[in-house]
């Protein structure tokens, strides 16, 4: 057992345990439910920040806080093997941060049956912490599903428009994606002959005896499309905007912000290092499909009139950059993807939260029925502009997104230089829809509908209970933006350990 390995264990166990206490706390009244739930979100963040400070692996880039627990599946080489390396640590911290923000926002929402809503969110949080802390690829999958199931329930019960259809569509798409990736993981387990689902063991074993190319080919294909559905790779993305449109805001924050990164993380940590030949065979596919994400979905995003749908499509579009960065298969590109995953997770969560706040003030998501909100709610406008700018990647080095996208662009330029034109086009597209959203929601005159709705609901600026969760996200966004070194150092160390990424740099 390593030092402080309980940090990681508790960050998974505490939210899970407090989830059940939340159900119980209903008997003690609403404040008790809120306090228990917020504690359940705050403790993982505190533990994750400690882990961030204490991270000091035996070898540079290796795993720290390692623990191993047999749950009774040793028959097929599965054990609960937890730990963090340079790739998972920043995502672990990001998951905890978004979790606290989503939890705080949910705790003061007016959802019916608040205790059950918070129960679902806490279970999801436990799953999210587990995803990034698992070294065992079975538990990696298991925790993903643990986080995924509450999403369906929350969309179906607390969702908005079209919730039943959206919940059903999400369930079927994501189950298909999950099943494909599960079969892919089983393929690696069986064909490697290592007799273990443990990532470290598998890596060591496959470094000695790599899989035959045909096996790598189909196993990587399974993982690419399985993970691809989960990350909304074009053309399998249609569940995402619909689902996010219908999902309650905290669920959308956690899913779009954190859970969706599972697929990318799986490609970076599992699929490409274990199946390098398969990855290079499928590289072309990744590039073309990712271009679909950037350009086609970008154009669709431009045509959106609904604010939440717009954010949904923009988040799908940004996944295209991530896939391009992965396709470059170099430390710079993949490192950029990880930075972008952190930044994008924080940004998109912030955007979903802010758009719900806009909705509370305007009673609509239709951007045509808003306008001039900046006068009535300047703080909200400031936050929103900041988040949207971050999402576009425009405003220079102050925000984390910039570093991620810059690294990806450099890596992609080295990889296939013509791709840079597509990427520039993508930036222009996102600038167009982003700035237009800001303009139509916050600037200009008030639309007739908005004037009408103000007669019933008067508009006030953000209250402190709304500002705190937004600030939590913004602070980390700026922190990583100003001090990217705090995550990149160990990140690059960990990626250097993978021959497939290290090789890409020397070319």
């Amino acid at each position, binding site marked *: 057992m390593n030092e402080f390995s309980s940090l990681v264990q508790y960050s998974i166990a505490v939210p899970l345990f407090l989830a059940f206490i939340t159900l119980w706390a209903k008997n003690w009244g609403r404040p008790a439910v809120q306090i228990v739930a917020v504690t359940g979100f705050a403790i993982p963040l505190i533990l994750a920040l400690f882990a961030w400070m204490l991270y000091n692996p035996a070898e540079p880039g290796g795993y720290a806080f390692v623990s191993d627990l*047999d*749950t*009774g*599946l040793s*028959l*097929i080489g599965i054990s609960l093997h937890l730990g963090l390396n340079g790739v998972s640590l920043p995502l672990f911290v990001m998951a905890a941060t978004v979790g606290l923000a989503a939890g705080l926002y949910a705790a003061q929402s007016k959802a*019916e*049956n608040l205790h059950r809503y918070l129960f679902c969110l806490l279970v999801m949080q436990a799953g999210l912490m587990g995803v990034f802390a698992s070294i065992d690829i*079975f538990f990696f*999958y*298991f925790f993903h*599903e*643990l986080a995924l*199931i509450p999403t*369906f*329930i929350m969309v*179906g*019960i*607390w969702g908005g428009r079209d*919730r*039943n259809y959206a*919940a*059903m569509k999400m*369930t*079927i798409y994501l*189950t*298909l994606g999950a*099943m*494909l990736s*599960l*079969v892919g993981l*089983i*393929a690696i*387990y*069986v064909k490697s002959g290592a007799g273990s689902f443990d990532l470290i063991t598998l890596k060591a074993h496959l470094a000695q005896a790599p899989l035959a190319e045909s096996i790598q080919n189909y196993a990587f294909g399974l993982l690419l499309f399985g993970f691809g559905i989960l990350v909304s790779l074009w053309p399998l993305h249609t569940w995402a905007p619909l689902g996010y449109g219908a999902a309650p805001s905290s669920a959308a924050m956690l899913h779009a912000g954190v859970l969706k990164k599972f697929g990318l993380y799986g490609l970076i940590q599992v699929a490409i290092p274990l199946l390098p030949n398969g990855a290079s065979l499928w590289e072309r596919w990744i590039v073309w499909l990712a271009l679909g994400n950037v350009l086609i979905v970008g154009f669709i995003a431009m045509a959106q009139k609904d604010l939440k749908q717009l954010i949904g499509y923009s988040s799908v579009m940004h996944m295209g950059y991530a896939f391009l960065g992965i396709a470059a298969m170099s430390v710079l590109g993949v490192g950029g993807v990880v930075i972008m995953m952190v930044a994008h997770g924080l940004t998109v969560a912030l955007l979903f939260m802010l758009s719900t706040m806009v909705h509370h003030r305007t009673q609509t998501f239709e951007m045509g029925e808003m306008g001039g909100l900046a006068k009535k709610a300047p703080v909200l406008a400031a936050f929103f502009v900041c988040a949207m700018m971050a999402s576009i990647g425009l405003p220079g080095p102050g925000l984390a997104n910039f570093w991620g996208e810059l690294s990806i662009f450099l890596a992609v330029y080295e990889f296939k230089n013509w791709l840079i034109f597509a990427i520039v086009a993508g930036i222009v597209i996102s600038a167009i829809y982003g700035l237009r959203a800001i303009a139509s929601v916050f600037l200009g005159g008030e639309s007739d509908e908005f004037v009408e709705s103000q007669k019933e609901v008067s508009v006030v600026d953000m209250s402190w209970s709304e500002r705190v969760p937004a600030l939590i996200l913004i602070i980390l966004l700026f922190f990583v933006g100003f001090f990217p070194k705090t995550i990149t150092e160990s990140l690059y160390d960990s990626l250097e350990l993978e021959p497939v990424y290290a090789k890409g740099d020397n070319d």
Partner: protein
Amino acid sequence: MPTEYLQQIAESNSWGAIGPELGLGILALLLLGLEILLPKVAHSVIPRIAVIGQLAILASLLWGGMSDATVGEAFGGMIRFDETGQIFRIFFLITSVFVSYLGMVSLDRKTLPQIEYFHILLVVTAALMLLAQANHFVMLFVALETATVGFYILVSYFRDTVVSLEAGLKYLIMGALSSAILLFGIVLLYGAGSNPALMGSSTDPMNFGNLSRFLSANPADTLGLLGMLLVLSGIAFKIGAFPFQIWVPDVYQGAPIPTTALLAIGSKAAGFAMLMRLVDVFSPLGDWIYPLLSALAALTILFGNLAALTQRNLKRLMGLSGVSHAGFLMLGVIASRTVEWASTAVMFYLFAYLLASIAVFAVLAHIEGTSDSELSLDDLGDLAKRNGFLGLALAVGIGSLAGIPPLAGFIGKLLIFVAAFQAEHYGLLGVAVVGVVISIYYYFGVIKAAFFEAWRFSEDEEQGEEPIPGARLGFFGKLAIVAVVAGTIIIGFYQGPLSSLLAGG
């Protein structure tokens, strides 16, 4: 003849080894005796005695273990005790405890005699336990028929409702047909195996060991092949595999809920107990059996899931989804040809299926009105709001059947999939994955009916909450549901206890 021969057989009669089955028989008789002796007002005690007695036998099985020198053949080769048989015994006893509880819930609402139900249930359970340990076709057939005759009565137990009687008749006809097919197959095997002109023939070819030796000496014997085919058909009827699944929806719908549960769990598991033992016996014919089973498994998975898609009647839905589970289990049995631990995976799956099905049937038993055969998705409306506890139980049960992590059903499916992959049955695995994705649709429909519509019209809340007809959860009812739900969740996270039970530890 041969008093010596009889003596020799009698010597191998180790009555102690079938103590649990004898105990069940005595308990069954005791119930009838008590019904005569006790005054009528005290009759409600009798089902409780039945449950307590079964729990005592279960405890003795679990703690007694296989410690005695009971492993091996007994009763002149009629019965063979081994680890798998022991696990199936535990499985059937757990099933019957929960079915007794369902019976207490659902019979209380009828004016029918009750004690006989528990009497027959105990006899059927004892027969199933013996069936799992049979090592001889005579034993197998007698045990199977004892159970099946009991089932005829249990299916048509609600003799005042037409659907129950209709189901009983259908089950009788189809059951008789399948017994006849099975018997015909046994006779052919007997004829082939006792032909002195062939190598490896013996005077007792119905003994599994002798038969297996005969078949390995004559793997191309036409009679033997035909016999094997017919025997497998008879078993396919029991497990509800395609194309012998035709009786499943009607009988499941018409039978009283406890009987439906016993059919879905006990009868299916008994089929698999036979199948797992017989694929060993027939292993010399492996080149015929396994392709056949593979085709059947694929069709069973697809048929069960596709037919369940449009189903709104809950008991039919459970029946058809049970057909698809039979397909997944067959996949495990097929994989066990090359992957040794696959039979452990099958047992694991069966236990997960047991817990999940009981959870669902317990919820159905509590919400059924006067006519349980008409229970449909609409009856689940607002369940989560009317009774959150039952709603949760239903969600866990359905989730586990759908194979959603972190529930026990998921681990079961995972083990089967890994085993199938190791055995390189890629095509079947693909069918199974498709089946899982299809099944999400109808399982999701159940969840949707119970949960999502509940919150749709929050303004209607004041209309007064109607009590669910017949929802009356006593302490023991809650205890039983909590046991299956907690079991399902805990096994999803921590498989240790079940793994060590299956490993025979």
